[in-house]
Each structure stands twice: as C-alpha cells, then as structure tokens.
C-alpha cells in the first residue's frame, strides 16, 4: 500500500482506503451501513484515541485547502464521525430497525426541492 497519510499518522494507513475516496456525507453514511460493525469498531478503537493529535495537526494548516496527505487524513476522520455514530451510540453499523440501505439526501438548496 502506498503512503497516503501524513508521516505522523502512518500507523493509520491500513484504514485509509476505507474512507479517503468518499467525498460526501451521503457516501460515508452509506459506507457505514455497508461495513461490518467489527470493522467499524476496529477503525474507531485505533483512530479515535488519536483524534486530538490528528485535529491539532490539521488545524495547524489554517482554513485554506489542505495539502493532499492532510486532505486524505481529514476525510478519514470524517469517516470516523460515521464510525463513531455506530460505536458510541448504536453498537451496530446500521440503526436498529432502519431500512437497509437508505440514503438521507444532503446538500444546500438543491437537495431540498426535487
């Protein structure tokens, strides 16, 4: 696997491929529904304890566009947000009883009218 994350977070590399290609909240939510809970839990257990370090690293880049390795790291922690919903609240990848799969449309004005 080629290195895609900043060097300080190379140990998280095995999880990067799960999330770095997912650019929207909708796609991450769908990926969470598709992943086994154990995979989400393993990702969470490894990554969540590093969250403060990761965010301190990313915050140092200010508000403009992140370098590509940092952008991938950021996308991975957005994946962590979805994994955390599963691990911290539901002990399940999918909401118990929810239709599978389901999408919740996300967007600005455009999402809300058609």
């Amino acid at each position, binding site marked *: 696997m080629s290195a895609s994350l900043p060097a300080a977070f190379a140990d998280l590399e095995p999880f990067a491929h799960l999330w770095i290609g997912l650019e929207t909240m909708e796609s991450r939510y769908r990926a969470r529904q598709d992943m086994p809970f154990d995979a989400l839990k393993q990702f969470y257990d490894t990554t969540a304890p590093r969250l403060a370090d990761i965010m301190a690293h990313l915050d140092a*880049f200010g508000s403009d566009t992140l370098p590509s390795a940092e952008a991938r790291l950021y996308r991975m922690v957005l994946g962590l947000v979805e994994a955390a919903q599963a691990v*911290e609240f539901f002990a399940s990848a999918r909401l118990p009883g929810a239709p599978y799969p389901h999408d919740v449309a996300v967007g600005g004005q455009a999402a*809300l009218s058609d």
Partner: protein
Amino acid sequence: MTNILSATPEGGFDLGHGMMMPDAAILRDGRVAADSFWSEARHAAERDAIYRRCWLYMVRAEDLPEPGDYVVRNVEICGVSVLIVRGKDDVLRAFHNVCRHRGMPVADGACGKAEAFRCPYHSWTFGLDGSLKAIPNQRRFPALDAGDLGLVPIAIDVFAGFVFINLDPQPGLSLKAFLGGIAPLLEATTLAPFTHRDSLSYDVAANWKAGLDPQYEGYHVGTVHALTIREISVTPANPFSEFRKMAFAGPHAAGWSQGNPSWRPRADRIVQSFAVQTMGALAGRVAGEGYPSAETPASLAIFPNFMIHPGAGGWFTQQHWPLTAQSHRWTAHYYYHAPVTASERLAIAQATAFGRDSGMEDFMVMARQQKGLASGATDSFYYGEAEMLPRHRAAVIRSVLNGAQANMRSAA
C-alpha cells in the same frame, strides 16, 4: 387582532377563514380519529383547507441575496411548483413555475441565478418580474397580448428573514396577522449570523402529522431515543422529558424544555466529546452571536408544518411536507457559525450526523405507527396532556375542516 399569544390552548385562531375555536372535544379528551392519519378524503380536505390557504414557509431571504437569485420549491400536496426570485428592483416575488405558452416549468433545478427565465420547450422568455419578454416567431400568435401572459403570481411576504408564500390567489389575511402573537418568537430566531448550513431531506412512509408529532413532545424521547438524546433531556426530576412551559398563538404553539444543564458527553465517547467541546469553543470565538437563549422554546411550531429548535451549534429548522395521505418529505436545515478550523468543521459534521441519526430513530417509529393506524385496528388514538402541542394542532385542524365543510354547505 388575531392569533393572540396565550398560556392555554383554548384561544381562537384565524387561518384566513375567519375566527374559529380549536375543537373542544379534542382539547378536552385528546382523542383523535385514526383515519386523520391515513384517509384519502382527509388528505384532500387538508390540501384544500390548509395547504391552499395558509402561509407556508419557503426559504430564508439571505438565500436569495442578489437580483436574479431564485429557488424552486415544490408544494407536492398541491402539485404546485413555486418559483421565488429576487428582481432587479431587489423585491422578492413568487410565481407559479409554469410557462404561459403550454405549461412547461420555466425554471430548472432547485436554485440558481438567472437574467431571465427562458422556457426549455419553445423559448418563451420571462423577466425576473414575471413579465413575458419574448415569444419566438410571435407573428404566429396574432391574437395574443404578451402583456397579459406574465407568469402567474403567488402571494409572498417576508417576516424577520423568513420568506412565506400563500397559494390562495386572495389570501384571507396578511402574513403578519397569520403569525399573530407567535411573531416575536419567530423574530427572536436569529438565523442570519449562522452562515454554515447542513441541509438534509428524507421521504418518510408516514402522514405529515405523524412526522410533526415527535418534534413537539418529549414523551417519546426516553423510549425512542434511549440510545441517543435520552440522556440529554431525561433527568430524575423530569423522567418524561416534559416541557416546563407551553404557549399557544392561534394555530401556532411553542414549548420550553426543562433541559439538563449538567449533561456532558460520556468520556468514552471520544468523538462526541471532541465535537461538543469544539462547538463550545466556536461559540466562545463568536461571542454568542445569534444563539438561542434560555428563553428560546425547544420547539417553535409555525402552523401548519414549520418547526424551529435550538441546535447543537446554533439552530435547527425542519418542515414536514405532505406527499400522499401516508407519506411526507422531511426537509431540515442545521445552522452553524462558519467554521474556521478543521476541528470546527469536524464538530459540525458530528453534530449533523447525530441529528440525522436521532431523526432516523423517529422516522422508523413513524413508519411503523403509520401501518398500525392504517390497519384500521382502532378508530382513534390519544394525545396526553404532556402532548398538548400535537393535541392542539389536531383540534385546530379538526375545526378548520369542519368549518370548511360548513362553508361549502352554506355556499351550496
């Protein structure tokens, strides 16, 4: 003066049909006909007496900052596509999004910026003020007067940045009169500083009123949200998450929660803890600008389908739009201050995901409730006294539909 603010639900209301009283039996017993959530006849009656008559919230004025900015909103129950556009004179106007040639929608997509609206069928072109500007090959319409063929206008008005329309060609009362005593609470909803917004939409297999119900009662929270928000609102002193205060203004209502000021995220919830802490820091950075206060209702219900709540990072608004008798579309906006750091963006993502998932907990229940009611097993259901806001809404709608039937009878 109509729709006066009151601490009790018995006050009269006016939706433009004249002054009416909420149905006394429903207010007293909380007993509601089950078919009000599934019958086709009831759905059609609500369409005609409510959605074709009431002021309906559409969009924020700041979503249309410049001349030519437009949005399209569909009021599905009425089969109407509403085009709202800011004119060159800076005035907001609303039109039926229907070409006067042969009926094609003239504006594409949900929003955009236009110099004019050129119909995608035969290129009739309308100005931002709705007037018909050009008919290609006009000599083939020798008898038509282009001056009469502007887009059909829809009544529109703005209060405190909230843009409402009314599908009644002659609204029975002004937006201001419709809002009545609830207006100050709407005015205190300061969305403008919250320039970052996450917008969600989901079609729910349940009547639109089933969608509204859990947005203004706390009774379900301990059960439905046992895994999520229960710990935030259920306390030993308030085991059923009851409102500490309720108020009613005509058809509108508000409920104030008791809250749980000592709530903190569990320490082992690392991501939620980080998000809540970061959101607090963001609030400190913007010095409280525009935030809900202790006097903000947990649920502000603008009749018929608009709800406003304090949100994790600012505000949360939602609407429940009827689609069929047994389905509705939920549209929600989560408002936040503009994030500066990656941490703040992450905190917002967590807050929206949490809102989405706890919303989904409600939707799953509604869809099952819908099947139970539509099975015909029971002819009625009950709202308790702690569910007085939905009870009041049911009483208002019952009277409106009775009144509309009486009007029809007297006209016949």
